[in-house]
């Protein structure tokens, strides 16, 4: 990011924190105004509704324009050249919008940046496949690695964390094409995690780039777990076994995989507790859930309904116990953790719960059957079926 954009990002972080303090009642309206004056905003921004509108409409306009130009060309190489020109132009436009025009969180510049990345990817993919210098597998690998490089460059230059996550996803997808892809999925996270963890907290980086580091670290941890998970090993999920002929893993490798499937989630949670990192706690919980699902694939200790009910009740009990454990400590704090809401905005989480509930718990549309008899399904049991189709 440019120094001016990085500085503006730091000021925005302080204003956002002040907004949370105000919502939580730590500061009053006068203090909030003074903080906004002291850390004033020089960027051109838009609220979330307009941001979404601008993003969608800008993408429509750009894609429509490119579609017209593509139709005027006669060859694949022409499309590649057009895409290259459009990608480079949009990259410069994004730089101009985020630089001299001082746009940030406006929607338009994010759409132009996305278009630039996509067009530059298309350009290289077209040239790569037209040239036909390598096998199909090698070309796909190079396409993925090029797209990863572009996304990483976009993340570094413009500070959008989704590009960081995309870059790492594409990178791991690319190296999975190599004969030792699984080994790369193990080694690269092990080599990078300390560096990325340091970057997540580094005062030398602006908040946007710290978020990019966190996004890349998240994907690295997930890739590492995917590489050690015994189900992924047995089903060659990383190696795409349709394309590679991989021998069955050695028994010792499989036993190691089983051990790591069981222990990696715990290790991630331990790092989260030791360093008080919510990212690791949440990831550890997610990986733990994945390990339990993996266990269920191999060991049928109990019927599915019992596993679900016991699991659900266990989660409820664990949450209640954890809350009691934290509340019973001095000042409601234990080991740097508290159950009290500090600056969290409950409205956001409540809105997500409402959306998730309507999406998953609403009665489903089912055709009426003359047969009586219960036809409930797992999580759709809540309504008995109704048409929601229009």
């Amino acid at each position, binding site marked *: 990011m440019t120094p001016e954009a990085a500085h503006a990002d730091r000021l925005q972080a302080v204003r956002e924190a002040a907004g949370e303090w105000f919502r939580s009642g730590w500061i009053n309206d006068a203090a909030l105004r003074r903080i906004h004056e002291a850390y004033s905003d020089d960027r051109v921004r838009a609220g979330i509704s307009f941001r979404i509108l601008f993003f969608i409409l800008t993408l429509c306009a750009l894609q429509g324009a490119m579609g017209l130009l593509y139709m005027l060309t006669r060859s694949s190489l022409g499309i590649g050249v057009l895409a290259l020109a459009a990608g480079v132009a949009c990259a410069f436009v994004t730089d101009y919008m985020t630089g001299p025009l001082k746009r940030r969180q406006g929607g338009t510049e994010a759409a132009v940046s996305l278009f630039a990345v996509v067009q530059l990817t298309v350009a290289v993919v077209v040239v790569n496949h037209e040239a036909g210098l390598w096998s199909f597998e090698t070309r796909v690998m190079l396409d993925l690695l090029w797209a990863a490089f572009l996304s990483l460059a976009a993340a570094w230059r413009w500070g959008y964390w989704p590009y960081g996550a995309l870059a790492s996803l594409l990178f791991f997808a690319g190296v999975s094409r190599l004969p030792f892809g699984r080994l790369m999925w193990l080694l690269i996270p092990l080599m990078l995690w300390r560096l990325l963890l340091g970057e997540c907290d580094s005062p030398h980086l602006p908040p946007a780039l710290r978020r990019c580091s966190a996004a890349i670290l998240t994907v690295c941890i997930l890739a590492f777990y995917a590489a050690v998970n015994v189900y992924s090993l047995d089903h060659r999920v990383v190696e795409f076994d349709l394309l590679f002929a991989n021998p069955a893993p050695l028994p010792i490798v499989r036993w190691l995989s089983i051990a790591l499937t069981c222990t990696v989630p715990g290790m991630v949670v331990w790092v989260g507790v030791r360093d008080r990192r919510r990212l690791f706690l949440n990831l550890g919980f997610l990986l733990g859930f994945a390990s339990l699902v993996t266990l269920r694939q191999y060991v049928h200790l109990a019927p599915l309904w019992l596993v679900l009910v016991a699991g659900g009740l266990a989660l409820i009990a664990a949450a*209640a116990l954890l809350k009691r454990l934290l509340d019973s400590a001095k000042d409601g704090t234990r080991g*740097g953790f508290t159950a*009290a809401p500090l600056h969290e905005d409950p409205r956001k989480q409540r809105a997500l719960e409402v959306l998730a509930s*309507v999406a998953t718990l609403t009665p489903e549309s089912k055709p009426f059957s003359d047969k009586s008899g*219960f036809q409930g*399904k797992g999580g759709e049991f809540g309504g*008995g079926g109704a048409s929601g189709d229009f």
Partner: protein
Amino acid sequence: MNPDVAEAIDDLVRRGILPEDKATRLRPIARGELVSLYPELRLLFYIGVLLSTAGIGVLVKQNYENIGPVVIATALGAAALGTLFWVARTASPFSWNETPAPYLAFDYLLLLGVLLAAADLAFIEVQFTPLGASWPWHLLIVSFFMTCLAVRYDSRTVFSLALSTFAAWRGLSVSILEKQLWRATENTVRWNAICCGLLFVLLGRFLTRSARKPHFAPVSVYLGWLLVLGALVSGGPEPGWEGIAYVLVLGLTGSGLAWHSFRQRRFALFAFGILSLYIAAGQLVLKCSLDFMESLFWFVVSSAGLIAWLGRVQRKMREPV
């Protein structure tokens, strides 16, 4: 952890903007020395409720012939009653205004009780068919029951489920009960969705104006408009004058919604209105049988024009960032 905020706290204290006693409480949070697990605890409760109800559904589905319908109905009912009894015992006094939950797990216990009760009613209806051919009406009963609990115990989640269950009742009953009254076409379901959506929007207005659970109004209004606009969009592809009529109604509705929301500074609804108008215009263009390049040209020009116009509107509306 946020090093910029940690540094800013010291700066704000130096400038006299932030008192030292407040800064002492805020610094550990900014430095990552104090972390709240409040969102994670809520998530654990929520996922726990979802898993439990999913498991009960699987149990009933896979074992109802072995266990017996009476036992299942009784067990589900007892579990629902027990949960809701506990909720009733520990609930805060009723108020038409927003009431904070008495404890963290309250909302989720209520959700669990509601889901168990709804599952029990659905099971009884399917197994014993007390309503006979009018069986879809059980969804209305469930919706009413959910609404009562949502209002009494101030739960937006249960309120949203009540609304979606009501909409589901309208969707099903059209194809089963109202064949005698209306010609049962896809349009009937579509018009039910529109009427249902308008009802939700009016309900939202009533809640706001009467100051009775006004914080429930956004759920009702947004769901209502999604139903209305979604139904109108789905009618656009219909052939002939019918499709054109839907497109025109969509355009008029979108314009009206955008205009009204612009005046009220309701940004999300304004975005709904503008997107509806854009989709209506696009559907109309596609119906004009233009060739592909002409259609693309339209989308480029219209999008660019709309962006330019929205830039001016945005400056007037001043949506908070």
